[in-house]
């Protein structure tokens, strides 16, 4: 039978594009009540007769389901994109219904929405905030400034895209993006979380990024390194 030629059905949708590929929002990504997606015919399991109605799923899928439906963005805004972000949080475009609740501390946040122009003076605090967030964590670059500098391209004071500082998962175009665009970006991020759970298991692979803006890598490590050298100089 054709079923035997297929791979073992340890996923629900066997064809999963990479995170870098464009994809349309796919309703089959959500966990279906029974794995009825095309090309994935689960073999009849013994417990089906013993306990009908029981659904099985991978742990990574369930974790991703929990994670993607309670994204807590770190509350900070840098420029006019933050105005659109605030209006997205408000009642008209209610983000609470997706489980997206702003949180004023990086320690409990999941996603960082970089909303606005990243000036060089702000680069180091942003990196510090990112490193204070616990894994798994995601970054959304909102607007053209955070994407590649936008209207401030090659300015003396602006970082040419926040991906010079932190790895970015979702880029949202617009100057500033409408609230609908931000909501679409968040939905894409939810898709990406589910995809990554399928593709990489429990790991959360950060996208490659140009971490060339701040020398020495980690801000936190550099802080401790400075104190060590200070102690060495003192000794």
């Amino acid at each position: 039978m054709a079923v035997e030629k297929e791979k073992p059905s340890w996923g629900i949708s066997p064809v999963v594009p990479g995170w870098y590929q464009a994809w349309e929002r796919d309703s089959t990504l959500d966990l279906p009540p029974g794995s009825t997606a095309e090309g994935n015919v689960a073999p009849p399991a013994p417990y089906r007769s013993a306990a009908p109605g029981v659904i099985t799923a991978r742990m990574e899928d369930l974790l991703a389901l929990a994670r993607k439906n309670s994204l807590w963005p770190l509350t900070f805004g840098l420029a006019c994109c933050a105005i659109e972000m605030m209006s997205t949080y408000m009642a008209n475009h209610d983000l609470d219904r997706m489980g997206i609740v702003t949180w004023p501390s990086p320690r409990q946040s999941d996603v960082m929405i970089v909303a606005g122009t990243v000036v060089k003076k702000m680069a180091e605090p942003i990196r510090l905030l990112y490193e204070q967030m616990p894994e798994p964590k995601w970054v959304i670059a909102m607007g053209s400034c955070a994407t590649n500098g936008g209207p401030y391209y090659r300015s003396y004071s602006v970082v040419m895209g926040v991906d010079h500082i932190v790895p970015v998962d979702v880029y949202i175009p617009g100057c500033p993006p409408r609230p609908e665009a931000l909501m679409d970006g968040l939905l894409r991020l939810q898709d990406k979380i589910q995809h990554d759970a399928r593709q990489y298991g429990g790991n959360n692979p950060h996208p490659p990024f140009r971490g060339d803006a701040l020398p020495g890598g980690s801000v936190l490590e550099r802080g401790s390194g400075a104190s060590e050298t200070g102690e060495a100089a003192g000794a």
Partner: protein
Amino acid sequence: MPSERLLDACATLRADPSLSFDYLRCLSVVDYEDRFQVVYHLWSREHRHKLVLKVDTTVESPSVPSVTGVWRGADWFEREGHDLFGVEFPGHPDPRVLILYEDFEGFPGRKSFPFHDYQEW
């Protein structure tokens, strides 16, 4: 007006009861390429009149005495002028960098600043 007499003039403008300029509305620096000009916009709350004071300084070593002793509000104006134009304000109580970050090279307010071939992350 020559910059040597600036502080005397400012003290007079502030203290004279018929002038009584007690508010520095704006302090700006203009780059005329052959000279720098520091412009002071003054306002009197009592008489409700205003005055514009202009001081020229050289391009080679731009320096104008600080008026923070007369108007405390000149503090951040002068720090901004020093950041963007490199004009020295001797007598300033806190001449740290205000707008730019530490170790920035050049003065981006000047017309000679290489804006169009500026390329750094």
